[in-house]
């Protein structure tokens, strides 16, 4: 059960006051009622909510993911971007944890020539390594740059919400390791799940809503931490993606 439910409204107000901002959804679309509607099927629809206000950029998630999923050095399923803003002394730093958005309208699946990558019915977009031929079309098609070619396996790889852990009843590695519970994982179809309740209580947003991919990874507080905010790149002193010089694509 959510330990934040009780006073989240108050907190939200205090947070806005601190930020001195009026709008809460400049970069993202507010989630529609459909996404959190009552469950009509028995299958869940998995999603993640990331509260960037609680993220301290410690990279526990990044390393947990690397360890759990044997991600090769230089490649990333999950990472945290640092966004520095402002001028001295009104400077700030915000953190944007990144992973596959598990889109409801995924761009990656439709371009796959072998149907190796698909949404498996519970919201998770997976890759069948037996079918993947490593053509990398999906890597190019993904607007979020979350896929990579794994030179060790010869196939494309990306976040699958730690599907193996889920099968064993465990949370994704990044969620389980987070000291501050900045990541909440759960069933979006279950109105009583912690993630559904938090989404209902907060103004949440997704990355790049204009791509109309309907991500199932939601964020609280990305209005000030969205590197995809193409409208104002000068907004940032520096964006550190923590993906190293040689690792993207």
């Amino acid at each position, binding site marked *: 059960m959510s330990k934040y439910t009780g006073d989240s409204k108050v907190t939200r107000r205090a947070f806005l006051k601190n930020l001195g901002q009026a709008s809460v959804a400049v970069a993202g679309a507010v989630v529609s009622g459909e996404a959190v509607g009552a469950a009509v099927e028995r299958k869940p629809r998995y999603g993640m909510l990331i509260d960037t206000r609680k993220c301290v950029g*410690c990279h526990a998630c990044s390393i*947990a993911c*690397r*360890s759990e999923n044997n991600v090769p*050095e230089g490649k990333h399923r999950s990472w945290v971007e640092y966004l520095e803003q402002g001028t001295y002394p009104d400077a700030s730093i915000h953190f944007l944890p990144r992973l596959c958005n598990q889109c409801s309208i995924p761009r990656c699946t439709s371009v796959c020539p072998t149907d190796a990558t698909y949404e498996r019915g519970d919201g998770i977009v997976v890759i069948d390594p037996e079918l993947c031929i490593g053509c990398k079309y999906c890597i190019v098609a993904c607007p979020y740059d979350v896929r990579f070619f794994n030179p060790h396996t010869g196939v494309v790889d990306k976040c699958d919400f730690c599907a193996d852990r889920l099968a064993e009843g465990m949370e994704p590695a990044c969620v389980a390791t987070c000291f501050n519970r900045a990541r909440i994982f759960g069933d979006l179809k279950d109105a009583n799940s912690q993630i559904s309740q938090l989404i209902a209580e907060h103004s949440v947003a997704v990355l790049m809503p204009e791509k109309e991919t309907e991500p199932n990874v939601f964020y609280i507080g990305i209005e000030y931490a969205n590197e995809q905010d193409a409208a104002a790149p000068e907004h940032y002193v520096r964006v550190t993606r923590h993906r190293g010089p040689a690792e993207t694509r």
Partner: protein
Amino acid sequence: MCVNKCGIQCHVVDGVLQKIDGDPRNPKSAGGICAKGQAGIMALYDPDRVKHPMIRSGARGEGKWRRASWEEANAYVADNLAKIIKKYGPEGLLWSSSTDLTEQFFVKLGKYIGTPNFVRHATLCLASRNVGYFGTMGGVPDSDIRNSKYILMFGANRLESFELPYNIELITAIERGAKLVVVDPRQTVTAAKGEWLPIRPRTDMALTLALMHVLIEEDLYDKTFVADATTGLAALREHVKLYTPQWAEKETDIPAGKIVTMARELAAAAPSVVIFPGRRSSWYTNDTQFRRTLPMLMALLGAFDAPGASFFNRGKVQLGEFDWELEPFDIAERVDGFDEERFPLAHHGDGGYVHLRDTLLAGRGKYPVKGWMIYKQNPVAAVADGNATVELMKTMDFICVIDIQPSQTAWMADVILPETTYLERLDPIWSPSGSVQYVGIRQPVVKPQFESRTVLEIIQGLAPLLDKKHQFETPLADAFDFTMEQFVDAQLAPLPIDREQLSKDGIWIAPPENTILGEYRSGKKTFKTPSGKIEFVSERFRRNGYDALPTYESPKVEPEKQRLVTGRFAWFTHSANQNNRWLNALLPENTVWINPELAKRKGIKDGDYVNVSSSAGRVKIKAYVTPRIRPDTVYITHGFGTNSAGQTTLFGKGGADQILMASKADAITNNQALHETLVEITRIADS
């Protein structure tokens, strides 16, 4: 991986560690573990690990080694120690180590051998905080951050330098609407999550004194608490009279109006205020006196022994004592005079690192010290003025380092003995101080890799050889004739759980007991100070020649130079894991943080290589131009610039802060003062 010892569960397949997860039952870490904890696998399987004993085959520090068997290495170490003991006595040995569960065995070996010359971790870290707090209120209090309304941190960086449970509670408190104010010349992540007060470095005491001035002058202090639980208010009132907010503004660069507002807001939030003690207090030459002002400020606010305030926790679970049968015998006095007379208020058993090194280097030691045994410590990186530490090593006839990796210090040794990591051994039982009392057991999840041995096994290998060469008061082989299992059993004897059960459960949590607040307020409990109260005026300090009330002194300023400060990112601990491949990838090379205004003045662009020089040394390092630091301050993350080519991931990248730091220390405790160095930055022309 670090001192917090979060609860972990390890997933092992066919004897190979696959994954480390947090243990949700651990009262402090509650299932979370940080990047370091997750990367423990890479410490275990680090290709750069010391895999077998190594004996130097080239010149010292040249990096030429030959593989040795344990038999040969043990004979080599025992021969050399015996030679030194024969020629100079046991006091001819310097014995240094840092805090961990197994350090006690190494320290005990030194005690049985009979050297007085121990030097441990405290004066590299928190000695000034401890003496400041103990001298004022008889202990370092815990902080009820979870329920606090106002948390004031001086430099403490709990969101990057984790200390359980504060790092977790801080986020909870902020979400609940608590105010967090962080006083720091650099905007750490902690400062970024709260209100950042970019104070002029080394003027923190001016702020605390001015806050006390306002609390007293505006009659905002907690009169009941001050009357019941403190002594010396009249003298304090007189003392802080001149420390006005207007005066403090000139010192601290924090507007007077802001200081007044702060004092009023603190008073309004009291008693649910945490004046956070901090941990690493190795900042300034007046650090103990600065730290004293923190509990004084706390006391004026009555922010003690109440919900959301500071409090004394229940302490640790009382473990059983292993019977060491170490009878007292005559040992020499310390070589460096780190004693009652010279440092009356310091903790002498732990030594004073800077004082020790500089005394020996200056030839002022009371007798020759020619051998150095080092366990789980990296003084070349850890002590200010790294070049001087290397100089001290050059004066030694023999240096032995026990470590898991070829650290900078190991690289300068004559022999390196490979230890097991925390994942390969049974360790003594651990019980942390805290609100929830529990004990944890660290047990091996995989077999020791390569030829590594536990420090107890290493000692047991050396003991009989040393006994053959020297008659010790107690034969060493007898003293260490026990197993780790027997040691653990002795520790667990008073508890209602035995080793077998604890090994299965991993953790034992004591029956819950509510923390009782109010007993200090009511006078039922007294403070462990001479007066039994929180002492604004310390007669003990006065008697020993120190200011009875903390007195401010302005920092030295050279307009064209910047003050160097140091710290860490959340995925590094000291100099321990910068060579861990997974963690290193997050920051392969450290940088010097430079304010944009200063960068512009110096013609430095982000990413340029610059020379940073001080009275102690010079390093070449990449510039990181950021508005998150004051123009008169620069910051370098610690742990880079290794001289050890054995650390193949780290070697050749970044610059070492300790090379730049001048040899300075706190006057009272000899805690090293890492933020007392002014540096000059110049652009490297062709970069």
